[in-house]
């Protein structure tokens, strides 16, 4: 994985500290051109990986990437699925069964419903695979070397102890998409234990890692210890602690941590993208020196 990954929260009005900023972002990125322009700033700054949710609008961004193969020939996308609010709102409105009916493509599920529950009960992993395929459709023809499961699903399954789904996701991504599976979580040490117990060695895990202990269940010390002593391919996210730490200080902390393979960040202006990238590159150089 590249050292620096560019995220997409800013494009979809995801802001962890301010509803007002969230609306400002929705206004700023109303048009797809605004997203593409900002992606191009990231590419100019030397970033080649875009880590994004499977939001409906990403499908149109993918169209642009496919239409300009020369320009985006080194460009990679790490899809993160699913876009949870789509499903969460649907569950409130339609219930769990209604939601599955709405989003599982094709007639297979309809047939299974008619065919009785016995068949369904054996095929939950298959349903998950169909949902993965549905989410992956928009990336056809685009380089997606790592595919992530979003934290709300990873952590839900983790709490429920439904490890087979985590393993099922892992295996299906490898076999069907010939890609590396990754897991986003807010409970990194617990997830690592669970994945290892399911036989998944050296997993790619994306988790909050910041100086202020923000969204790091189990605490910063345990996270630092885990990075030092365990085998995982770490992607650090929420490095600014939701905005609580001055950016330079935040980036110095995370850049100098051992065993962090990649740093994920989001920014909506050219200046912030350039600053973040140059800060990380500088701290990396200091670390080597």
């Amino acid at each position, binding site marked *: 994985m590249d050292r620096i990954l560019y995220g997409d929260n800013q494009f979809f009005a995801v802001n962890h*500290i301010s*509803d007002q900023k969230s609306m400002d972002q929705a206004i700023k990125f109303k048009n797809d051109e605004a997203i593409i322009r900002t992606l191009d700033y990231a590419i100019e700054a030397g970033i080649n990986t875009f880590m994004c949710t499977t939001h409906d609008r990403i499908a149109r961004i993918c169209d642009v990437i496919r239409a300009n193969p020369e320009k985006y020939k080194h460009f990679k996308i790490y899809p993160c699925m699913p876009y949870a609010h789509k499903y969460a709102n649907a569950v409130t409105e339609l219930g769990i069964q209604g939601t599955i009916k709405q989003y599982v493509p094709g007639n297979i599920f309809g047939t299974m419903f008619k065919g009785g529950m016995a068949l369904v009960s054996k095929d939950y992993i298959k349903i998950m695979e169909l949902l993965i395929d549905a989410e992956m459709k928009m990336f056809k023809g685009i380089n997606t070397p790592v595919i992530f499961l979003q934290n709300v699903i990873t952590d839900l399954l983790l709490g*429920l102890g439904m490890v087979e789904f985590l393993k099922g996701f892992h295996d299906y991504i490898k076999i069907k998409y010939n890609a590396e599976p990754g897991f986003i979580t807010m409970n990194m040490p617990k997830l690592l234990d669970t994945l290892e117990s399911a036989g998944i060695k050296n997993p790619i895990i994306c988790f909050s890692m910041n100086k202020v202990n923000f969204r790091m269940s189990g605490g910063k010390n345990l996270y630092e210890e885990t990075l030092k002593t365990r085998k995982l391919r770490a992607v650090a996210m929420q490095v600014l602690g*939701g905005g609580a730490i001055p950016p330079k200080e935040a980036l110095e902390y995370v850049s100098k941590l051992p065993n962090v393979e990649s740093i994920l960040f989001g920014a909506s202006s050219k200046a912030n993208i350039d600053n973040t990238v140059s800060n990380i590159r500088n701290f990396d150089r200091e670390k080597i020196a």
Partner: protein
Amino acid sequence: MVKVGLIGAGKMGISHLSILGAHPNVEVVGVCDTSKIVLSALEKYSKFHCYTDYLKMLDKEKPEAVFVATPTKFHFEFVKELLSRNIHVFVEKPFCLTEDQGLELTSMATERNLINQVGYHNKFVGTFREVKKLVKSGAIGETTHFMGEAYGPVVTKKKEGTWRSNPAEGGGCLMDYASHVIDLINDILAPITASKGSIIKSIYSKMVDDAVYSLLELSDKTTGVLSVNWSDETYRKMSTSITIIGSKGKIISDANELKVYFKEEDCPEGYSKGWNVKYVTDLTDQVDFYLRGEEYSAQVDYFINAVTGKVPNSINNFQSAWLTDRAISIIKNQK
């Protein structure tokens, strides 16, 4: 280890189940639901014992505490049964369909000395807790006006719905969505005692309301406005906020960001004259297991701690949820 059961494995139930499953002081002894699709998934892939009849679950697993996350219309019957068996209860919001039901359960829980909590999770959000602290300490002086708001994209087209679209089952924007805001107003300021006029509108739903606007009066005669709409697709997810104007300052807070304005130098520690901005990240305690927001884990922790006698049963107890139910009926009967 507290032995806990769950009745209702829908959206909230599954979320509670995951948090309970990861909780170091909880043993989940049983899960009950009527949906075959959910139950067979749990049976096949989790270690939980599954039931379709909650009475059987209670008989067999003997839980000390039970989470009830069913449609609201079942709350009264199920919670009453649980209390009669001396089981501690966490029940989802809104509490009951009528005031009488809520009153009966509240007194029953009190008489039997059982821990009782309702899932108004906003009370565990750092910013709203800070708002309450500021208001109760008199930092912004006497309240002259408040506005409680919530907007979100739940029903944005005409469509057939679930129980949430059936008024007899506790559905609709007022019961399901506005109840959060009403509960916050009750808690931060004072219980709502009168409505001076309410507009309860359907926008897309056939059977229930999608928006509620109301002029409210509280027990201390403070007045303000409620404005809630769950058919607003300009919001990515539910956004709840409260604005309070006082004689010494003003508070604007949502679940992420708290803005406080003080007129004078005389203000609480950590604040100064003029605008102050604090983020939920500064005001939130770490949780052991994070699922959808610290507040969801924090409310479960609080309940389990109350069952084991570590905290008083004072946040979100039946009594406070009954006041919210009462406010809902005050608003409804005013239209």
